[in-house]
């Protein structure tokens, strides 16, 4: 048993750190450091730089253009990328559709989609949730009726992140309404977002950002060749996608980066006549967070180093613990950064800041952005299965209750 990275792992970490230091464009780094959410073009630019180096598809095997890293090496990459801080690679492209196609796709599907997904030539989005099917995904109703070599899709998806950027959408649709078990009769389709009959309606989030969408399908014709896996067996594909190895689900690098950032800013602002960093209550909050981060970090090491031994598709139920604790820390650390900003974190002067600065000056941008990401990350304990659902999973899988 040894907690330390191997020499090889340390070398890789240094190599990645140096690469990000040298190649991450300054304007992107600066926006990320101030806490801005990455813009589409930031994500694309950075992911292509990474892809040039063969790292964008960080969890894909070599044969498909990935680096063929071990779970530990993937964790190192994700953490370094978050600590930079750099935009994260598109999870839809890299950790969702990629592995799904590698596992279930036809040769044609792999050849056509994987390289473009790695280089984000196609921007993918996920069409799973529906107004009546959130935590209860199997309740989905969007119908796909077979007509010759096409499916005709009608229905509505919701909470579809970045659908307004997307070129393609991987969707769960109901192909057999008569199936006795709801999980049967569902198929997994790849849908070109330019197909006639698709309407994307923005949903503005409480942080003011447009990230989520509703997507309406009105007689949308999808070639049968765009189905992944067998007809009516789409649930297996979805389970694989949701359940398979979840390195980085805890997003610890991001939480660490937020604490570092909060400490840096706490040296600049004051409380009760001294630097906030010297305030006992603030210091104790930071110390407790550092303890919690350390505990989760080692736990993540343990889970990740176990992935190697598990067959793919079989998730470690403890990854639900990583999701719960990881999102709690994301929320606590962004909350900390917001609290450091204090009154200056409450204005929403994003637009004004973009505008030609005129007297009196506004800002600082970091305080306003800290609140923006605090608000945005309230969703972290909701998406990907609420933390309450994660506890249900632990109850059944681990506790046998």
């Amino acid at each position, binding site marked *: 048993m040894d907690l330390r990275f191997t020499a090889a792992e340390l070398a890789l970490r240094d190599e990645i750190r140096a690469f990000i230091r040298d190649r991450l464009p300054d304007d992107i780094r600066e926006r990320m450091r101030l806490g801005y959410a990455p813009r589409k073009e930031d994500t694309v630019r950075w992911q292509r730089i990474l892809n040039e180096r063969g790292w964008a598809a960080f969890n894909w095997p070599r044969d498909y253009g990935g680096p063929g890293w071990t779970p530990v090496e993937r964790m190192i990459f994700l953490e370094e990328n978050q600590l930079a801080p750099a935009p994260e690679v598109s999870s839809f492209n890299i950790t969702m559709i990629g592995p799904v196609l590698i596992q279930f796709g036809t040769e044609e599907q792999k050849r056509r989609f994987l390289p473009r997904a790695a280089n984000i030539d196609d921007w993918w989005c996920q069409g799973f*949730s529906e107004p*009546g099917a*959130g*935590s*209860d995904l199997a*309740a989905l109703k969007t119908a796909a009726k077979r007509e010759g070599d096409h499916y005709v899709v009608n229905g509505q998806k*919701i*909470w579809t992140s970045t659908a307004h950027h997307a070129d393609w959408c991987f969707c769960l649709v109901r192909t057999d309404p008569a199936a006795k078990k709801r999980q049967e009769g569902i198929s997994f389709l790849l849908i070109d977002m330019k197909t006639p009959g698709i309407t994307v309606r923005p*949903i*503005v*989030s*409480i942080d*003011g950002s447009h990230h*989520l969408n509703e997507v309406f399908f009105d007689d949308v014709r999808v070639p049968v060749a765009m189905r992944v896996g067998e007809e009516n067996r789409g649930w297996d594909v979805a389970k694989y996608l949701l359940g398979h190895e979840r390195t980085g689900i805890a997003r610890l690098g991001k939480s660490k980066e937020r604490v570092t950032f909060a400490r840096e800013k706490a040296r600049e*602002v*004051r*409380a*009760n*006549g001294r630097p*906030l960093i010297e*305030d*006992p*209550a*603030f210091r104790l*909050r930071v110390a407790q967070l550092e303890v919690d981060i350390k505990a989760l970090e080692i736990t993540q090491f343990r889970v990740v180093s176990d992935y190697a031994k598990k067959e793919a598709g079989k998730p470690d139920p403890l990854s639900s613990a990583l999701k719960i604790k990881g999102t709690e820390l994301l*929320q606590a650390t962004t909350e900390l950064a917001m*609290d450091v900003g*204090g*009154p*200056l*974190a*409450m*204005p*929403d*002067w994003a637009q*004004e800041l973009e505008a030609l600065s*005129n*007297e*009196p*000056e*506004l800002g600082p941008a970091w305080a306003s952005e800290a*609140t923006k990401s605090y*608000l945005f990350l*309230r*969703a972290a*304990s*909701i*998406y990907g299965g*609420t*933390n*309450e659902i994660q*506890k249900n999973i632990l109850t059944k899988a681990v506790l046998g209750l």
Partner: protein
Amino acid sequence: MNFDLSDEQRLLRDAVDRLLADHYGFAQRRSYLAEPEGWSKSLWSRYAEQGLLGLPFAEEYGGFGGGAIETMLVMEAFGRVLALEPYLATVVLSGTALSLAGSEAQKSAILPPVAEGRMTLAFAHGERQARYDLTDVLTTARPTAGGWVLDGAKSVVAHGGGADRLIVSARIAGERDDPDGIGLFLVDAEANGLARRSYPMRDGTQAAEIALHAVEVARDDLLGEPGAALPIIERVVEAGIAASSAEAIGAMEAMHAMTLEYLKTRQQFGKPIGQNQALQHRAAEMLIALEEGRSMAMLAAMMVEEPDPAERARNIAMAKIGVGQASRFVAQNAIQLHGGIGMTEEYAVGHYFRRVMVIEHMFGDPTYHLSRLAEQVQ
């Protein structure tokens, strides 16, 4: 000891609730946000007609001599509907400053037009570098033949962009953080050398940054004794904490009610999600937080007029912590129990979430006040 409202108080509360029920639907509120001021001028006149704008003022200035309880009732009602009007800035903060420190002439000149809805005010004390420290004032006031000249900047001044007159704090003597030497000045918003820049807060309410370059103020526009303003500022802030705490309680009530409604109606796995015991218990914990928060808001209101300054400050700080922690718990769980819909701009709960978040970061957040309380432990 009793928690009953007097008949007058009950009448007041019911009247305000009726008025807001008719005029503050979520869609109506959106239309007020779209108005140039970011709030409803016509409702402001209604408030005046109902006597709300002079509520805490003495009769001789067109007021009704109401106390902190009356203000609490009004603010709770405003919190329930997320009212956008500058009541806290004009009536509570600036009104308290004037009532406590204003001369006869100043009060007669300003309070009546405020009570009649013809004038709005803003309390311009906070500065960029001060964060929550009340003594951290760098804006200066130099005496001149005719009065004073102000230089400096004020930050995140609630409704400072639209106010007709500003109450500005400035340093007449002493260094940064010196409790002595601070003065309060009545400044016309149109004065030469005064520049304002408005922006929305995260909850949609209006605030402004204010720059003062050699702004001339007449001798008569000094509020109270020169350099002795800190005790006044502290009482203004205490009144602000009490009033904004009551507003937060109103907002928490609304979030809790919405969450219960959602738990009863939202179906997943073939049953209302409210049948999940884990969510039931969370809702019960939210209720407890709401009721304990309400108790703390009552404490703050009843302490605003407490004569002993140390006792008053300590209890109001405890109330600020209690309400802040309770509102954070209720608001975060309100969104969590709603799931995705709670994260959207179209749905009301996220707007309430942001209002209590902004209130929590006014006048010192819980960590700030807890740290001060802790230093007194012995």
